[in-house]
């Protein structure tokens, strides 16, 4: 029988209802009203990838944000014909929220390291929701800025301890 009819993890619950539960717990969306989260859960789609499949490509603006529902993926940077694995993402990771807000070329590729299923939200759908509920962008921006400030704080600590010149260039990014 098709998996859509009866999911093992939560029998008798529709995909929408499962998505709703997940979106409520993603930090970027937690400040939003239930009406808006319902729309996100309603408009996102699930996408499956086999091990080795690219989920998104470096230098491409795919206009999507991803929640890894199951499986795992590597963030890969290709430069000068070399591939660097930046980090691994496991289930329950959320990536690409900036792509929802504005045109944004992905600086890395994401490659599935196991059979992976993602919940995908498109910029188009996000924009439609933000048009209806204008404070959505503001509410999503707050945790993003918080993350940016935290990242900078970490860089400062690292700079203080090791005085790396490379890190110096990143300092002050919260003042943009």
């Amino acid at each position: 029988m098709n998996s859509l009819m009866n999911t093992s993890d939560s029998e008798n619950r529709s995909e929408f209802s499962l998505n709703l539960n997940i979106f409520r717990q993603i930090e970027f969306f937690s400040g939003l009203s239930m009406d808006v989260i319902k729309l996100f859960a309603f408009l996102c789609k699930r996408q499956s990838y086999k091990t080795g499949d690219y989920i998104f490509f470096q230098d491409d603006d795919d206009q999507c944000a991803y929640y890894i529902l199951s499986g795992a993926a590597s963030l890969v940077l290709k430069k000068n014909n070399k591939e660097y694995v930046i980090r691994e993402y496991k289930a329950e990771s959320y990536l690409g929220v900036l792509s929802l807000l504005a045109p944004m070329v992905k600086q890395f590729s994401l490659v599935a390291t196991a059979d992976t299923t993602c919940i995908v939200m498109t910029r188009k759908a996000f924009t439609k929701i933000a048009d209806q509920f204008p404070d959505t962008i503001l509410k999503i921006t707050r945790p993003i800025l918080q993350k940016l400030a935290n990242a900078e704080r970490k860089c400062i600590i690292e700079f203080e301890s090791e005085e790396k010149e490379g890190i110096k260039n990143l300092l002050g990014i919260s003042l943009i």
Partner: protein
Amino acid sequence: MNRTLSSWVLDGNVKLQILLVIIILITVAIRVVPLELQQRIINEAINLRKPELLVKYCGIYLLAVVSASLLKWMINIIQTRISEKVTAEMRKQLYYHILKIPLDFFRNTPPGTVVNSIINELTVPGNFIGMAIAVPLINIVTLLAFAGYLIILNPMLGIVSFSLYPIMLYVIPLIQKRVNRDNRKRMNSSRILSSKIVESVAGIHEVQANGAFDIEKNKFDGIVDHLMKIRVKWNTNKYAIKVTSNFFVNLGPFLIFIIGGYLSIKGQLGLGALVAFLSAQEKLYDPWKELIEFYQVYQDGSVNYKKTMSYFDVQINNVLTSDDRKPYELEGSININRMNLETAEGVKLLDDINLDIGPGEQVALVGFSGSGKSSLALSIAQLYKYTSGHATIGTKEISELTKADITQNMGLVSQSPFIFEGTIKENLMYSYMALHGETCTLEGDCALELDNLVQVLQQSGLFVDVLRFGLNTVISENEKEVIPVIIKMRQAFQKQYGEAIAEWVEFFDENQFLSYADITENIIFGAPAIDEFKNENLMENQFFLNFLDDADLKRPLLTLGKEIAYQTVDILKNVAPDKLFFEQSPIKTEEFDKYEEVVRTIKNQNLHQLEKKQTLALLELALRFSPGKHRIALIPDFMVNLILEGRFMFKEKIRQYHDHAVAFFKNDQYIHSQTIFNNILFGIVKTANPADQEKINQYLIALLISEGFLEEMIEIGMNFNVGTKGNKLSGGQRQKLAIARTFLKSPRIMILDEATSALDNNSQKRIQNVLSRQWKGKSTLIAVVHRLDIVKDYDKIVFLKAGKIVEMGTYDELMAKKGYFYELAYEHK
């Protein structure tokens, strides 16, 4: 545009106008006959009691009346012919003129104004031309004839009858002045109204997406109300002219009764003469009325004509063609020397540009937005007229070339290319056909082979899209010859690739539930062959409704329908209707209010308490539910089993009801309601992952090649209708189509104004490769580029800032210089 309205009167219509005058003169002469006969019938036939004279005069009377009617009919036919011919000619000339007006003009001219001018405003001037000779002539001559007749009959009464006309000739033009003033206002208001309508239709996506129905309605209502007020005033004054005219005409008999009656009592006027006089007097009414109407049409026509023509009386920068030579075959070199482009307000869009481009060279224009890149490209393309300096193509000054010279040698692709309503093929051949002419392209030496078209489709990257359009075509009844080929391909496809694609496709299998088909399709499992089994009619199909009951499906479906309606209404209750929001639910955008009402009404009701209307609404919803597509609800396992059971039961029952009601899905039968793609697949694609879909496509292309059907599929795909303004295509597909049509034209100079901006990275790179490898040396290329990673292969990169060239050189030179280009390139990285 400088022609007067009267210059159209004889233009190409001399013979018809002369014929009209002759017929009119005969008609006028015949019209007088009954008047004379009236007198003779009374005085000679009746008074002298001569029946033979009565018969004779009545016969002549009848003949005169019949002849007059026939001649009047002929006059109308000729008039209509002249009117319509002139209106059509005015429209053609104005349209042709508008096509050549410089682009600046259209920045302030909404399309609605053009539509309104060509369609509506030229009708009245056209009508006037049809009347211009006939109506005044027939009626003035008639009036004079009657006047002469009346004066001969009785000079004093005749003069009294006409004494009122000078007063009318003074009063009516006074009122007409007001009518003209209102007519001008009406035209302005009509233009605004037409523009508003065109704007709303063109921006309907935005209106619906924002739910801005009230905003648009209020704007529209305001304009309509304003127009209504003007029209009421305009028409009131028009009727005032008619009423004034009628009043004075009706005063005529009053004077005749007073004076004529008195003369008759005194024995100075015969009774027959008085009757003839009164009768003739009454007959003055029609010609006078027609003259007044003519006067009004003349005035309205003049106002409309002058206002329309003066609006479009714009100087055309470059002549279309030269009479004394063929278009130049220009060299591909471009030399620009101290070129400036300045707006009327004195803003310098281009400032002292100096640039030399060799034949076949490829030049990229880069810079920030507003730097003048596009202005420079469009000035070279003659779409902007540079205000000083020189620019030459070969040895010829661009500003002195005709449009034909430019189009002969140049191809332009703009950032937002316009795609016309029609097929891909028609759009593809547009530039080529404009250059070589329709006759030569379609029937003559310039005819294109399919290979030519396929080549440019491949170069532009549109090939795969066209193939997809072909595969997504539902073939019509008259293309039956391809059906056996497709069935054969289906079998070959299953054999070769069935296993490889099994995880992405749901094959039609009688024993399996289809998650990506809706419940109706799962039950019927075939294509309805008669109307009553089509989706839109199922809720009126008693057989089907009874079947749902018999198959124990009705109550589970109602439960499902209720769940879908509740969820959708709950999620979408606070948003403006937008198509995107409704893609995930079987409720259509326009049905939301209906289901909101259903949900409100049945809130505290159980299924058995539902009214028939509510039951049908929920059943319809559930039957449209497709679990693979609509993730809002879940179908329980027992219901899936019921549906599969029901599928077999339906098959059995319907055979008893109607033998050919449904064409069931069978592996050796073509499904006429489905696309070629689904017919080959014999199933439904369930993956939304573009990479997986691409793999299926690649298998299909491999199959089409091995079966020798690829070219035929491309031909089918090229007949895809792109919709108004190419709306059925994506932005990227529109750009690819525009690039392909320029490639097909193969011009000596190509101008690409951010022509690939809507394409994804790979497509942009692909087209850049084609330009570098296949077009370098053949065509001079000037490309306005916003992505700096594709400019490496250009011979020259020109960096503009505030209308000036601030850097120029090869990619390596500019990167080494570490100036503006380097900065911009670094920022992009």
